[in-house]
């Protein structure tokens, strides 16, 4: 996975509704059609780092199959951050694409 993009993907995954770690990994994997594989072990430190920065907040709740799980929710600052990151990323992708030129 591209360095530094995990944070952005996690924030994007939380945009529709709060979710717990397992769901977040799943969402990223399924929406990317399994192109992006998330190592669960590194997902959690990333979540904690984002929480420290105030982009997401957490609460404990019961999951869909009735297990205890820690849910994360996108905060206002997190949403703003995501918008900023997204436009920066898109600029970057456009630039790289231009440099690469059309595929031969």
């Amino acid at each position: 996975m591209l360095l530094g993009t995990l944070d952005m993907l996690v924030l994007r995954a939380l945009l529709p509704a709060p979710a717990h770690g397992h769901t977040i990994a799943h969402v990223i994997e399924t929406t990317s059609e399994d192109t992006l594989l998330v190592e669960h072990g590194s997902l959690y430190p990333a979540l904690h780092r984002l929480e420290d920065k105030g982009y997401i907040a957490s609460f404990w709740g019961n999951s869909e199959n009735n297990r205890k799980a820690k849910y994360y929710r996108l905060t206002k600052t997190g949403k703003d951050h995501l918008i900023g990151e997204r436009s920066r990323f898109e600029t970057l992708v456009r630039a790289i694409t231009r440099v690469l030129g059309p595929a031969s």
Partner: protein
Amino acid sequence: MTWRRFLHRSRRHAEFRGEIESNIAHETDENIARGIAPPDARAAAHRRFGNLSLALEKEYRMNSVPVFDTLLQDLRYSVRQIKAQPGFAAAAVLSLALGIGANTAIFTLTDQIIVRLLPVPEPQSLVQLRVDGGRIGSNNGDGTHTFSYPTFKALRDTQNVFTGITGQVISGASLTGGDRPEMVRIAMVDGNYFQVTGVGARLGRLLTPDDNIKPNGHPVAVLQYEFWKSNYRSDAAIAGQTIRLNGSPFNVIGVAAEGFEGTTVGFPARIWIPVMMRPTISPTNPRLDNERDSWFYPYARLKPGVSMGQAEAAMRVLYRQRQEEELSNPLFTQFPQLRDSFLKQTFRLESAEQGDGGLRRRFERPLIVLQWLVAAVLLTACSNVAGLLLARGASRQREIAIRRAIGAGRARIAAQLLTESALLAGMGGVAGIAIGAWLSKSLLASLPFDQANFTISAIPDLRVLGFAFVVTALTALFFGLAPAWQNSAAAPSVTLRSEAAGIAGGSASVRLRKAFVAVQVGLSVLLLLGAGLFVKTLQNLRRIDLGIKSENVVTMGVSPAFPYEPARKLQLFRELMDNLGRAPGVAAVGANSTQLFMGGRSDGSVTIPEVPENSRPQSFFNWITPGYFEALGIPMKAGRGFTWADWGGGRRVAVMNEQIVKEYYNNQPPIGRSFGRGMRAPLDTEIVGVFGNSRYHDVRGEIPRQTFMNMDSAIANITTINVYARATGDPRTVMAALHTEIQRTDPNLVVTGMRPLDEQINSRIVNELLLSFLATGFAVLVTLLAVIGLYGVLTFAVARRTREIGIRMALGAEAWAVVRLIVSESAPVILFGIAAGVAAGYGLGKYIENQLYEVKPDDTLVFALTVGALLAAAALATLLPAHRATRIDPAHVLRMD
């Protein structure tokens, strides 16, 4: 952020564990839903999660502050190490606690007596005025800082270098109105006292120059804050109320700001009144306008921008002009020789940023000496602990070598060892503060001051705690640094291989330990020398024949709470002596006007007609009651003492001591002859007896010439009498009875300072008592530490050389050769230590010379005894391990490989 995580890391960790568990569970559920069997489903979930310990490690790093984390780790490790060897830790902490405690205790006193400034705004600009030499007339007080009131006034009103000059005189006064008359210290001050010192009011108003214009015209008083708090329960309604001082009413106008106790360190003034009220307080001292009577202590505040030197130069001119005016006094025309002496006076200024320095002048030298002594104690304790650490490091070589082999850097290990030192020092510091508080409390209790009126405190304040903290930190560095560096050096390859020899430890560590022991030996020589000099001083002082039998005598001051008529005093004092003499357990009672051995004195010329005018003697005077010589056990040599038949009869009689008779009457008792008190005085007093020599204001110095006058001849001037009661047994047992008899005789009598006379005498030599007692204690402590240190390092050396000694013995070495081997290890250390100690001892002797009494600072006996004692102790510490070395069994040692 990391800090917050760090502080909650155990909770964080548990939460993370929960999340992991939740993830695994969800993944397992999914796997089962896909149709995988439950045990496999869980294992697959784990695989899917990835490296668990890596995730935990990542999380752990996020939650930690790196430096702090290693520190915490080191601390935990240190605690485990200390727990593993509690004996070592106890020895180290105890020696450090003693060292730090001694330092804190002495600093508590040094700080308050020598360092601290007066609690007033800009204390640095306060100065005290003094005149040295050529004092003509009557002097009260310390004889250098006192001025007559007219002289003071002239300087105050003409000077232009100060923002103001003020002054004070301290006195005891009876405060009546409570349940019992009470003696309090009052300060009689000039009207501008509070303006010049810059002290504000807590309540009401303070004195102003308008309160100090007419003699006896301003009966107003200002209370000290603490006194107001304790005696009047901080009653705000006190302003406007009346209190009675020596029987006269005074109107309380206010309370001074908190913390201000007057300008005399250690001895607080409880009440301030205008100095114009002095005649009211002491009717026998109405000399506000006598320029030849010095008793007033001036203080001044320098104008901004004026230096002390400039002010002194300007004031010298003024003082000189004033002297010229004073020369018109008829005294100088009558006795022209006084003129030259008077003009030889030197006027000076000295800093008063710490207030009047009586206490400081008296204790500065001893305190500085003590501060150095305790520094030496701490240094020894440090060397001792450093030695212990090195020894322990030697036994931990294997552990350290293994830690280095698996990748710990030398700095990391040294840091960990230093943490251990810091922990030991910290524990020593905490225990030291407790020991220090106890020690300074006992020290203060041993000072000869009325504790109720002495405000030097033993309670450690922030400054003392700060000092203890700094000392502790320095201590940890000092004793920890060298061993930490040395011990962390263990090279894995060498150490782990030499393990087989049984004893590890490089020769470098032994050299370092020997250096520490040499320092200890040197310090113990130094302290023993100091202690020896002080003990000899004390012995010399104790050996002085005071001329009195003091063992069973109780002394106290007695004064009427308000002024009595002379006739009433004559009657009262006689009645009091009779009643006290009849108290159970009392053998004899007498009283005098000038208290013995407290530094107070009254002296003057004696007109003896048999001696030519220009060689007539000065004599000390004391006014006494009948029974005085019996009470003090001063033997009669000729004639008689006073009896009640002399009392109030109008005939002036006197007794002289042997010294004056020897010098001026050719040893012929001058019974029946007459003399006059003063220069060219009328011969109006008849000598009725001669008594043995005794000491007067001090226990030191030459035998004083003394003349004893019958008290009735000066009864009008006497307010306080000092009573001496001889008990048949222990003087303490009659104290209660004496109190009862005094109250029964007249309930208005105020008793002060009742105590055995021996205590009063000891108070005269309190510096020497303290110095000799403390120096001896510290010296013994340090010597003990040094000997233990020496013993330790030699035992270690023997253990290290066991194999070598065994081989030597197997090859035929005799026991003496083995002993010589060990002595050769210890002798250089001891000799070097002793030489350094003796050299430093000469320096110390010079420094403390003025604290010694009839002892030379290089007293041969003291030096010889010290060196001898140390050699003996060192020999013992050497021969024990040496003896053990001769018992090594070669066969056993050689089989050890």
